């Protein structure tokens, strides 16, 4: 078990290194191959009034004249050993892990990222609880009452949930519940209250995003659970369980659902991992200052240190979530042994 975890952690570190190289190449190598010069790359870091000399100074300062390997090495060194930043009157230390400084906000990327984590985590985990409970429960009931009105209705709603893009359901929910028409209910938008500041406001500010996000995922989970349950409930061991005289509730929950959970757990790990890296559309629609909004704002403003930081951070969550899922397989399915 321990060996397995160590091996997976080494693999995870290698994966993150590869992701960082690929991301770096996308933003620094590909433009160069397409004809960009160090000066043209530097123009996005200088003001709108910069002349050629100022652009050249910026390119030198940013190390754009150095070979790309050297530039990547400097970036990687910053993450491992930290870096320095000239803010005018003095030089500031950027301790490891230093993902660099945003050249637009003049803030170090790492604390900025950490600042966004509670928002995204609140959104992702809260929505995950809703979609797992609602999706799995709906899937189980639909499977047990296959062909019933409930089954058909639930699957129709699920189809809608999967089909409707989040920017539509998000905007629709805001129109109905937040802008004062047609209902005079005003839920806050564009704000986030930290849990430890005020748990009630925290939940209130997230209820619409949770439901919107969960609606999308719950639909998929309901369909997946239904299909899994239909298959599992026809297995021989279910018949055996019933033959042993177990209560139907035990048969369904302990034997049927447990067997159907493995693929759901796999996809759940991936989904949560991805969402922890930023629910871009949900956060943008509701103006939540999370990782996804941070990423999209960074991309729109071409703030490359931020983009690099958020990509690596998101990749970290996906890798970690996968690791946790792999470990949980052994818990859910006794046939799985980690070695």
């Amino acid at each position, binding site marked *: 078990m321990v060996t397995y975890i160590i091996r997976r952690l080494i693999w995870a570190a290698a994966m993150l290194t590869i992701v960082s190289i690929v991301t770096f190449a996308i933003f620094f190598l590909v433009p160069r191959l397409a004809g960009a010069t160090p000066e043209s790359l530097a123009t996005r870091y*200088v003001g709108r*009034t910069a002349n050629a000399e100022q652009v050249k100074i910026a390119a030198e300062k940013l190390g754009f004249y150095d070979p790309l390997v050297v530039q990547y090495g400097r970036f990687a060194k910053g993450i491992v050993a930290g870096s320095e930043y000239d803010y005018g009157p003095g030089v500031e230390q950027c301790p490891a892990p230093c993902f660099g400084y945003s050249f637009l906000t003049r803030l170090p990327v790492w604390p900025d990222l950490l600042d966004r984590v509670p928002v995204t985590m609140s959104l992702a985990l809260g929505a995950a609880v809703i979609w797992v409970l609602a999706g799995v429960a709906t899937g189980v009931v639909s499977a047990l009452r296959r062909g019933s009105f409930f089954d058909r209705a639930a699957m129709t709603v699920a189809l809608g949930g999967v089909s409707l893009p989040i920017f539509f359901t998000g905007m629709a929910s805001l129109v109905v519940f937040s802008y004062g028409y047609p209902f005079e209910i005003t839920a806050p938008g564009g704000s986030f209250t930290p849990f430890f500041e005020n748990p009630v406001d925290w939940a209130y500010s997230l209820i619409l995003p949770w439901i919107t996000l969960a609606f999308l995922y719950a639909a998929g989970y309901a369909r997946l659970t239904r299909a899994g349950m239909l298959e599992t409930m026809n297995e021989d061991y279910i018949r055996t369980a019933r033959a042993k005289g177990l209560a139907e509730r035990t048969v369904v929950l302990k034997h049927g659902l447990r067997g159907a959970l493995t693929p759901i757990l796999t996809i759940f790990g991936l989904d949560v991992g991805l969402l922890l890296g930023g629910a871009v559309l949900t956060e943008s629609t509701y103006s939540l200052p999370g990782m996804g909004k941070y990423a999209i704002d960074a991309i729109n403003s071409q703030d490359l240190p931020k983009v690099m930081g958020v990509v690596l951070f998101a990749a970290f969550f996906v890798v970690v979530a996968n690791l946790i899922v792999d470990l949980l397989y052994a818990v859910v399915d006794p046939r799985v042994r980690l070695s």
Partner: protein
Amino acid sequence: MKRRTTTGAAAVGAVLALALSACGGGSSTTPKDSAKPAADGAKAEFNAALTGIVNPSDKKGGVLKFANEGDWDSLDPGDTYYGYSWNFVRLYGRSLLMFKSAPGKEGNELTPDLAEGMGTPSDDAKTWTYKIKSGVKFEDGTPITSKDVKYGVLRSLDKEVFPDGYTYFNDFLDLPKDYKGPYKSKGVNTDKAIETPDDQTIVFHLKQPLSNFDYFAQLPATIPVPEAKDTGAKYREHIIASGPYMFQKNEIGKGFTLVRNPNWDPATDPNRPALPDGFEVSTNVNADDIDNRILSGDLDVAVIGTGIKQAALGRVLGDPAVKAASDNPTSTRLWYTSINGNVPPLDNIDCRKAVQYAANKVDYQTAFGGEVAGGQIATSLLPPAIPGHEDFNLYPPGADNKGDLAKAKEHLTACGQPDGFETNISYRAERPNEKAAAEALQQALGRVGIKLTLKPFPQADYFALYAGKPGYAKDNKIGLAQNGWMSDWPDGFGFLGQIVDSRVIRDTGGSSNISVRDPEVDKLLDQAMAETDKTKRDAIWTAIDKKVMEGAYILPGIWTKSLLVRSKNATNIFVNDAYGMYDYLGLGVK
């Protein structure tokens, strides 16, 4: 209103070296000189806030909620170059002069702020002196002196630390050679550029005459900065206020809160009523969400002031009640097409005139969003809000504004191309409006045989490598180029300097002037720069406008307009012409 800039600092020999924006514990009384709410105020109808004050009130208290779909370039007064930011910065900073907080054309007038009066120029307009009011303090109670103003200006010169600002002071002050600001050139004597003979006097020395330096004195860089509390690039995180409000909380990327500055003395400030108790500002908020929240009353102001987006347009214009609570100001931005006289056959003035006559101005307007959200059809360069603007149209495009094809063919014949000619039209690939305008021109000019081929280029290199690089434009036959310009302040100097002066055109590219090469225009610009009489100066701007249009170097498209929706909770709402958006100083809470 964003004042986006695409140019670097441009030089005109030793004369014009500008970097202009292209494309772009309060008191219980209201100071008597600020925008005075009339007892009745303007009737709350469409465009009422353009010339009057809607919901006049002098009630104090309450908090106004602002939202920004993006974020400030910087809240630091020495490092900001957005029009909305210059409007907003007056809440927490006081510059030497400022635009009057008043509706209509009065908003275009300068008035003393930190200074006791307007600038006193020397005879040659190369030295400008300002006296600073006494009793003015920073938020920490420290008295503000001329040295704080000087320091604020000097630090803003360091474009490595403050890259977002303008370069007016870099270009015009008589600075010591190789001076790079107080961080890198520490201890260097800068008295030859800015003198502070006593705590209340500041004297600016320029390299050349500048008749309208007072406009420089209203720039946010003249907002005082205490040297002891300057943290360079990090100063934006905690700015020391000199205005009626100060920062209580500032989370860059998310938003900030302004509260009353207990050390602001209204007796020294007749310009600011300072009615609300504070401001809550959210940044990076979904643009459609902002529009909807303003319409529902949950939010008060979309701070960037560029108007509501397409998604909410129908709701505003389609509902008479909502429309009555909106305003449609014209900004000082012109979208236009440069007609490059370096590219044959457009080196012939008649070929250029044929383009002017054949253009369909209605389709051009539609390409930019139509009459309300796009703009007003332009007939010359200077927008109506800029002094010197005169209504004239040398190339009337027919009664329906869709082009005068007979006149166009007449000029084609005169230029030896009776069947038309072929050329290319460039536009910035990331800008769908420019593409649509280029397509509209392609169709319109095709009616007289002028065949245009569309050439998109990346906006980052548009002026430096493509349309703005004379050699490239000529070799690749870019006869027409989509372009845009907005002045930094409502004055001919700010509007025309960078787009009609042939001396800003460099072989290496980078100039926003792509097409105007007329020595007489250059001469007129020099005359205007030295003319201290405003009326005479404004007449020169008019003459320049006419001269450029006579040469048919520029096809004016539209003067932009925006549709602003008034807050349901705010009082004293009016549009300030200097910014083309609601004046943020006047607003109060119901």
